[in-house]
């Protein structure tokens, strides 16, 4: 662990975070009493067997869902108990998502998809255009800006999804099995893209089953039944 003294507060600090799902007769403790700190600029991987709570934890980090117990400090501010619209604002300003199933909107072109989260912020059109172009450039998809998602391969779609996630220059990039629907070649390309973003300073939290990709991260958190059972940290690659 890096020494914490004299450092600014970590980007993420979870204390005793839990999530309980209540269905008809069943109570599932999907995330159980998680304590976690992720400093700014770190690349963290979450691993664990199916059903261990990885997606749930990521959704809590991404403010898509609210915790049942515990606190969540994002950049030193508490974000537990924010209203739905305040969470929406935080999401579009500070958090970027890359989903396993890309989730591009079929009726919108590539560049409109990338522009989408920016339209939820107050931002001059010219600035928005500039950022869209830059993000597409970054993922090497500028030449496909006017295409519809259905005209792209899976790997290309995911690259567009990454562009969409980073166009808003989020402090935190969350990815849930971003390579899950891709073959190894396309998967490698997307992972390379994430590594570049990390090198440029983005904080990344990624869920993956693939041990090879997990090695890209500086740190892997193993979940089992919603609990953190093990952490292995490596020296930063760069």
């Amino acid at each position, binding site marked *: 662990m890096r020494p914490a003294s004299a450092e600014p507060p970590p980007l993420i600090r979870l204390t005793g975070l839990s999530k309980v799902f209540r269905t008809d007769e069943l109570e599932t403790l999907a995330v159980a009493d998680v304590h976690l700190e992720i400093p700014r600029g770190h690349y963290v991987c979450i691993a664990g067997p199916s059903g261990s709570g990885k*997606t749930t934890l*990521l*959704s809590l980090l*991404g403010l*898509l*869902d609210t915790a049942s117990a515990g606190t969540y400090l994002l950049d030193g501010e508490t974000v537990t108990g924010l209203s*739905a*619209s305040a969470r*929406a*604002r*935080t*999401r*579009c*300003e500070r*958090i970027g*998502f890359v*989903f*396993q*199933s*890309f*989730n*591009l*909107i*079929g*009726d919108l072109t590539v560049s409109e998809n990338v522009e*989408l*989260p920016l339209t*939820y*912020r107050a931002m001059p059109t010219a600035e928005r255009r500039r950022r869209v172009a830059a993000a597409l450039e970054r993922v090497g998809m500028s030449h496909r800006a006017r295409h519809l*998602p*259905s005209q792209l391969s*899976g790997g290309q*779609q995911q690259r567009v999804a990454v562009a*969409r996630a980073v166009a808003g220059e989020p402090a935190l990039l969350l990815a*849930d099995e971003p390579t899950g*629907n891709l073959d190894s070649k396309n998967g490698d390309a997307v992972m390379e893209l994430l590594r570049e973003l990390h090198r440029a300073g983005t904080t990344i939290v990624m869920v993956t089953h693939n041990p090879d990709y997990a090695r890209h991260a500086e740190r892997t958190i193993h979940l089992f039944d919603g609990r953190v059972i093990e952490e292995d940290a490596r020296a930063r690659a760069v």
Partner: protein
Amino acid sequence: MPALFNDLRYALRMLAKRPRTTLVAIFTLALAIGLNTSIFSAVYASLLRPLPFSEPDELMIVLESQPDIERLAVPYPNYLDYKAENTSFETLGAMSVAGMTVTGLGNPEHLLVELHSHDLLPAFGVEPALGRAFLPEEDAPSGARAVLLQHSFWTRRFASDPDVVGQKLTIDSNEWTIVGVMPEGFKTLFPCELLIPLGTRAAEPLFRDRAARPEVYLIGRLKDGVSEAQARADLLAISDGLAQRFPEEHGASRPLLRPLQEELAEPLRGGLLLLLAAVTCVLLIAASNVANLMLERAMTRQKEMLVRAALGSGRWRLIRQLLVESVLLAMIGGAAGLLLALWGVDLLVAMGPRTLGGLSGPLTINGPVLLYTLVVALGTGLLFGLWPALYASRQDLSQALKESDHHASAGASRLRARGLLVVGEVALAVALLIVAVLSIRGLNQAHQVELGFEPQRLLMAGLSATPVPDAPPATAMQFWDEALRNVLAIPGVEAAGWSATAPLVTDQLEQFLPPGVEASPENMRSAITYLVSPGFIETLDVPLLAGRTFGSQDVAGTTPGLIVDQEFADAFFPDQNPIGQRVRDKLSGLPSVEIIGVVGHVRQAGADAPEKIPYQMYYAFAQLPETSQQQVRLIFIHMVVRFTGSIEDIIEPLRSAVAAADPTQPVFALGPYSDHVDRSLMARRSIGGLLGLFAALALVLAVIGLSAVMGNVVVQRTHELGVRIALGAQPRAVVGLVIRQGMTLVGAGIAIGMLGAYALSRTIATLMPGSVDETDLMSYLAVALALGVFGLAATYLPARRATRVDPMVALRQG
């Protein structure tokens, strides 16, 4: 065949599997089809059903036209010439109508009597149910007096006595022999109760004058193989001959030949076609709603279709399966609609114009109506089934895989398809609503149009035109005047008078020569003419604008004077004082008659009817020479009474007052004058009411359809909306998104609907002049606004639901 049977069984199972959607669809279809069946039963009965006579398409009616009037009765001498000279008709009969008084059966009763030439019933192909038709020798002035009873009169006054033939009946104080009873339901032009031979009148001056038109209508049966056009040319040639021989009387007249069926249906055609268009709109909206349901179903069954296709089912096979389902649904809806129509027809009879069904009797669900229902149901089933079937059977395996795996929320095309349906529905509802609003507004305006007289606190009573048979008119007038004096003495009676005709009740046309025009038959013009007693104009409250009205000094033997209405004065004496001017006319018996007064214009045909004859003239009946008095057609005398207090306090004293003048004379058609005003608006009011009802139904169906589609849009877009929310879209933005989508459809629908309404109401304005103002922008805007508000409400709830979409759908793959 067994394959189809299998399809049918499977279809039933599929319908039963989703009972709620199935019931909603069946109910919607039943409502729309039932409505169509009901209206069609009226259309069929009134416009299409053959008249209840043998070979009815050979039956023609003959009228005459003049330059300023399209439809006139035919002078009796002309009839005799047409009859004698034509080569086109197997028989050319004639009929007229009169009011007559029957005595000797208890209370004296005033009845409508049809006068038939002896060959008219054979021309219709109708025989009396009892006894015989008129003999040629009875159809003459001096013939034995023979009368035929209508079935209803026979039942009512003779208790269906089978031995009625040969008995006597006293009509207008003469003894007539009953020669037969007509079959039940026999009706031609008038709701009469007795039939007598027309020829009995032939010696009367009115029937010997080529310039007089005592309401004689010619009805004939074409010879086999003679076309309508040939008959028309034949009559025209005869008419040209008459014009040469009688330039004065016939110079400007031409015969007008029309199929009897068309002529009878004419007054109802416009309104019924409008209603048919309206219910077709409702049906299309309902079909769109059901198409939406089916499309939704088809989408959820894509996987099933995929599997079927994979198992080797061809595309046509899939389409057939789905079509069997939709047609089955439509057939069930149609059957339920038929049940609704049984009740709808009753409603229509209660709400619709009284003349609905015309001659062919009451509305029924008969063979042709059943066939229509079947065709409509089948057509509807194919209409709403085909699109979803084509859609669901479209198998693009690769795209399907791509969609489900990659979650690039596609399906834009299917949403667009349903969007089009919504646009269509809204457009239809808007068009229908605007037309209904325009019609209802037109109706209200008609109510507010000045009639030119005051129908409130006014009462009308009918007196016999011939209280003493075969006596000169002066004798009859003694009775009318004495009755009038007695009525004026009743406490609560403010004013009273009588007239041969009265606004909204009956009319009479007489000719005059506009001043400064060369005297020739083509230059003669017609005016609505009232032959009145002193006090008639005052009693109606028609304002006196110049000169004087008739007074007690205007008695028999004094020089006739003429009172004209403002239209007449303005048209012919725009820059002069009309009083003292002279007009050439026919009735006064003078070379010209002096105008002694100008009164206000009266809406003779009612507030909403277009006025074909703008000019009006008044004569004092007493001043006319006896020849003129005899020449005018008198059906009955209209006594008008203005009263204070309650109408009940007047009616009995009025009967006594008339009885005091002559106890043998009936008083009939007694009632408030406002009844006639209401009746004149009746047909349009009932059509307006039905139109409003249908438009409201269309609106409800369209709103239901819109909100169902938008609800489904939210379901379809759940994933996309979830992604948007995950990416930080505010709830407000999501609501806006859905509402914008809904309102785009509504807006497009409103725009198209407004254009459609304009086109439709222009057509209506030509079909029924004066009934709608197609340029009434306020109505368009009001309906557009209302639809906008309803549309907003219909999209708002689904939009609210959209904000509750869980962004987790973006992470979890459905």
